[in-house]
């Protein structure tokens, strides 16, 4: 095998890694602020993809579809948080796994009911290609990675600069103290969940032209996002992004040797090794 397939897989891994990072940063944000392990996160990706596909069928514009999907799923996420997760606040985090697992089941079957079992492919908004060694690499893939990076960057700025971002960070650090300082903690939770859901939806639409949207893609995304979040350190935004790229690169290189279905095992093993030897996450400073 030459040097070129490895470079191609590096590009592939980076692109996939950025989409995964977009999913995982929403998941880690939600976990960090309210100790909720959102088992339905991948299904929000899937739902976003379907809403995007439907919008695109009507409007014909990819970017409108992206925006509409993010907004619709944000509102849906807020409603989900208020109805299902708010009553569980303060209970064992394990109960939130159970509740969101139920949500995931419902969403999957709902998608099957509404959109049927076949995959929806979204049209690429950018059709140009450039030469990458032996193949024509689509510009859209590069644009996806850049856009995912931009959304994560915007989130980071939002958390660092805005008043609401300060509220979110305060609530993450100490829920009770934040509440005592007059921060409306329940609404901070709802908003964060909505933001996480919108990011999931955006990745669903972005992923649409690459892999197609199917009703079963949710559990796959959930599992991979979990792996990323744990490898990067639970609740750690920067760590998740690095971990997403790391895991995607690992899988991309592994698929040079085995089938993509088996390449997943590499990331599973990475997760287990991380949990055993560095349970706080790979990309965080060693806790003292």
């Amino acid at each position, binding site marked *: 095998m030459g040097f070129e397939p490895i470079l191609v897989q590096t590009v592939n891994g980076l692109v996939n890694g950025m989409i995964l990072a977009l999913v995982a940063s929403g998941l880690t944000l939600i976990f960090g602020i309210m100790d909720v392990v959102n088992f339905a996160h991948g299904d929000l990706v899937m739902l976003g993809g379907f809403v995007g596909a439907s919008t695109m069928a009507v409007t014909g514009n990819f970017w409108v579809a992206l925006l509409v999907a993010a907004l619709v799923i944000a509102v849906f996420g807020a409603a989900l948080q208020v109805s299902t997760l708010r009553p569980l606040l303060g209970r064992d985090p*394990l109960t939130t796994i159970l*509740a969101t*697992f139920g949500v995931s*089941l419902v969403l999957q079957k709902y998608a099957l009911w509404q959109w049927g079992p076949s995959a929806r492919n979204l049209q690429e908004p950018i059709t140009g290609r450039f030469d990458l060694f032996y193949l024509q690499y689509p510009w859209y893939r590069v644009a996806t990675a850049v856009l995912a990076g931009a959304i994560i960057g915007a989130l980071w700025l939002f958390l660092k600069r805005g008043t609401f971002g300060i509220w979110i960070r305060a609530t993450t650090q100490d829920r009770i103290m934040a509440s005592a300082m007059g921060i409306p903690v329940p609404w901070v939770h709802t908003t964060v969940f909505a933001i996480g859901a919108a990011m999931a939806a955006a990745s669903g639409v972005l992923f649409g032209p690459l892999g197609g949207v199917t009703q079963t893609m949710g559990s796959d995304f959930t*599992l991979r996002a979990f792996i990323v979040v744990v490898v990067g350190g639970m609740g750690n935004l920067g760590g998740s992004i690095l971990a997403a790229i790391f895991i995607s690169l690992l899988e991309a290189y592994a698929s040079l040797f085995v089938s993509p*279905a088996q390449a997943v095992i590499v990331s599973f*093993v990475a997760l287990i090794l991380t*949990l055993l030897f560095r349970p706080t996450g790979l990309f965080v400073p060693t806790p003292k």
Partner: protein
Amino acid sequence: MTAATDRWDRPHWIGFAVVVGLLVAAPLVLPPFWQRFATEILIWGLLAMSSDILIGYTGMVSFGHSAFFGLGMYGAAAALLTVRPPNLWLAIVYGLVGAGLVAAFVAYFATRLRDIYFSITTLVFSQIFYVIIFTWTAVTGGENGLTFRQPHLAVPGLADVTFTPTVLHWFVVAVVALSYLLLRRITRSPFGMVLQSIRENEPRTRAIGYSVERYKIVAVLLSGLFAGLAGVLYAIQNKFAAPDFVFFLVSGEVIIFNVMGGIGTLVGPVVGAAFFLLLREGLSRYFEYYLIPVGIIFILMVIFLPQGFLGFLRRRLNQ
């Protein structure tokens, strides 16, 4: 504590005798479809009971029970396909060995982690086994799984009968009832008490001097063995083993059984399995996407009835 257990001992044994009696009589009165259905409920109930050792008694939510169940199935398949004539007892032994090995492997790694990390690790392990079984077509039959012939219920020198649905039902009743008695004994033994104290307060249990990790490993191993036994029974009932049963959604369903019926009660998970399967059966006749209402009921129960049916009932009785 002892007074309370004594007070409930007699009603418990009467109830147990009545339920077993009804289950034994069931195939004589039920039409074939419901007879098969009752057998299936018992098998899923055994699987749910096995995971109750972890969820209810030790406080560890395992998402890996599909792997133990599936390995039980494939273990039984291995015995039934390779040994002529197919032997029931060998199928059970192979199934238990398969599930036990996997459980030991998972237990060794996963028990070092707690709470959600334990859940995620068990989930990931079960997915690893799923991918291996799904892609290793030469040995496991891949997506299509394996089909085989049903063994005879043969006790050397005593009896040799074929598994009619009724005989199978009785056999399953016997296995599940014995497993229940065994599990009840285990959860009430000093070992079971240590498990419950791990659930209540792990650091304190450790401080008293118990080797928490070792207890957890044994708990996962036990739980995996009983789950494997359920897998063997399911394989014998349906004459096939398929990768779908190793997929983590099965583990999720088992957790739903537990939560619906009431964790930490052993009987609860069986009740939960019966409720879930009946609900599914009833709803699927009218609505193809029956899991939507079932899922909503499950979410409502997590929020409003976290103790499940039996926990709710028990609290009512104690008032």
